[in-house]
């Protein structure tokens, strides 16, 4: 039977841990809400972008064969460019581990990596892969923070340093399930598909309404010039939205992991309390026996 004082100390330390894990659970649930709100706040932009693309599509042929733009060029893939969105901190279950396993399974050939989050940086550098750049993005994950990263990625693609741009991120299925996904962004196969993607992202908004004004649209400086600049915006806004989604997934995973830890701590406290009471009872019984024995001896 363990020492009474030892058990008491143990109970106290487990309770402290439980307090911390519970606080972390609450913090992540409020942060998750914020990440989801941010993703929703970004939707009007995606919607307007889809609308612009749609408008240009009315004027020009959107099939990729007719567009000469670096983003549509199919090059021989020598080096894949992969952006990994991971977390800065651990304690979020198997979220990062699953993501990295997916990357190891799917990325076999030559690849260059850009990472967000300390965990991915550690993983890539430790596994001796080529790391081009490592960015840190604050909890807020505002678009302006991403701009240097987007610029770097798009430049690397344009000057042929990488032949694809793919994003590996934990996708948000629901609060309990996060699925690691590698999504290909560049080259763009079909602009129509892009449009569908954008519309899917803004699914819960009313669909693009019919035009109230039927006069012909004027493009300044030209429809081609407008179309030329749109794919880049698409890539940027999708990366931003995916980052927000991966943030929501992170907070969900952390919330669930911390909830499990809190529950485990509670069970442990119950068990220890039982042990403690047993030990106390045993000590009292022992004492009574001793007193009774000494009384009988006298």
């Amino acid at each position, binding site marked *: 039977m363990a020492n009474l004082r030892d058990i008491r100390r143990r109970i106290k330390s487990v309770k402290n841990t439980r307090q911390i894990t519970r606080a972390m659970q609450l913090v992540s649930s409020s942060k998750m809400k914020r990440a989801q709100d941010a993703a929703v706040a970004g939707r009007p*932009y995606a919607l307007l972008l889809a609308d612009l693309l749609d408008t240009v599509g009315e004027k020009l042929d959107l099939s990729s064969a007719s567009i000469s733009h670096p983003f549509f060029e199919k090059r021989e893939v020598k080096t894949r460019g992969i952006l990994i969105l991971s977390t800065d901190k651990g304690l979020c279950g198997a979220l990062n581990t699953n993501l990295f396993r997916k990357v190891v399974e799917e990325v076999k050939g030559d690849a260059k990596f850009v990472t967000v989050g300390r965990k991915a940086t550690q993983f890539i550098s430790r596994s001796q892969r080529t790391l081009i750049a490592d960015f840190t993005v604050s909890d807020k994950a505002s*678009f302006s923070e991403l701009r240097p990263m987007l610029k770097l990625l798009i430049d690397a693609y344009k000057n042929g340093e990488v032949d694809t741009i793919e994003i590996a991120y934990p996708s948000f299925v629901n609060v309990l399930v996060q699925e690691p996904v590698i999504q290909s962004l560049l080259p763009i196969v079909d602009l129509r598909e892009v449009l569908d993607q954008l519309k899917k992202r803004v699914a819960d908004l009313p669909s693009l309404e019919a035009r109230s004004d039927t006069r012909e649209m004027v493009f*300044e400086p030209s429809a081609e010039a*407008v179309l030329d*600049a749109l794919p880049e*915006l698409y890539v940027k806004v999708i990366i931003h939205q995916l980052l927000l989604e991966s943030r929501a997934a992170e907070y969900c995973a952390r919330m669930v992991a911390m909830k499990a830890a809190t529950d485990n701590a509670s069970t442990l406290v119950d068990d220890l309390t039982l042990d403690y009471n047993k030990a106390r009872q045993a000590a009292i019984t022992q004492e009574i026996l001793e007193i009774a024995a000494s009384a009988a001896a006298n």
Partner: protein
Amino acid sequence: MITLEIITPDEKVLSTEATQVVLPTESGEAGILTGHIPMVTKIVAGELKVIKDGGTEFIAVDHGFAKVLGNTISVLTEAAIDVAEIDLSEVESAQARAEEALRKAEAEGTDPAEVERLETSVRYLIAQKLAKGRRR
């Protein structure tokens, strides 16, 4: 009256009514009044003028697109701030910091990502300062 919407990836920054809106387009400033023909135009980093009964507001915007349809102007840009919200001293010190860092980076030849970030902030800060100065 025309409705002006300014939308950035983070949020819908502004939605307001105006009698005239002046957009900084690639081929110079373009004033938009009610009944304008439908138009999609590229805009450059600069100031967007919103003219109302009460006076004129200036809004600093980064490059992007504007769509005029019906009596609605939708501006799609990566960053925008109402000039009134900009603290000029802060802008200036941030600008000085950015320019200082830029000079250093040029001298040391640091990575292009960092240089781009600083260039963007300098370009944007200058636009903000210009717009603010104009108002006085």
